[in-house]
């Protein structure tokens, strides 16, 4: 279970972080894919199986929730816990990037 335990511990893999970012506003599955592709200028592209699995895991971990609506076009949104985990993960990556900049400047 080690590989997928990040969803429980809150230490998210990149794909999950991207999906959480897209769900800062309520979106349905495919809109998440489109949003990420547009916002990243095509550098973040999620396949449908990867997206579906990530949505399921995030929902299972209580980080996103389904909003009422059409069952065939489910709309998801961040939960309060999801927002906290998202902010924590962004901060962690910011620290890693700052460290990387520092190391590269010294090299």
């Amino acid at each position: 279970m080690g590989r997928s335990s990040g969803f429980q511990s809150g230490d998210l893999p990149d794909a999950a972080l991207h999906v959480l970012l897209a769900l800062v506003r309520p979106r349905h599955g495919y809109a998440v894919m489109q949003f990420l592709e547009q916002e990243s200028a095509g550098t973040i592209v999620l396949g449908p199986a990867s997206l579906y699995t990530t949505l399921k895991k995030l929902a299972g971990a209580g980080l996103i929730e389904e909003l009422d609506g059409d069952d065939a076009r489910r709309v998801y949104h961040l939960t309060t816990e999801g927002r906290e985990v998202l902010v924590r993960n962004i901060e962690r990556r910011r620290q890693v990037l700052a460290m990387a900049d520092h190391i590269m400047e010294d090299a």
Partner: protein
Amino acid sequence: MSTTSRMGNGLAFSPEKDLAMFADMARQGKHLNGVAKLGHGWRFTDGDPEDAVFDLAYESHPSADYFEIFRAAGWAPVISLGDTHIFKAAPGTTPVHSGVESRRDELTRNRSLYLRYSAITLIAFLLVTLGLRLVSWNEGVELVLLVLFMLPVVYTVTPLVGYWRQLNTLNRSS
């Protein structure tokens, strides 16, 4: 409507070979529409030649929006066999699995599932074998019983080995 059948290579062992065969057949105007040869092969119906790529995903309880997400991403459902779903798309479409994680999750789930099935069929086979040793039956009945209980072992252990190998290969390459 004319149909053609081809032997499969075993989705648990080499799905890429079967997926390439589906694309090759589609280019010849033969379109996948079911299984053949007692589940060991594939059935194709004649139609117009089509340039398409195929991929598969595993999902045991797809929600209502599962296929909708695939369709919206350009992947049209072709057939579903239990929790195995085969899709086709135009060449160049973003792959069904854009990273290794979802593929790894699927293979891990399938391995666990077939590990359970294999344990059950092996225990049943061993119990029958033990029973046949303790009680003397008609030889014909014994043979039929052995074959009857051996078949499920073959059809559960073989996929188990396949998924295990695929998972090991994926873990080594990522």
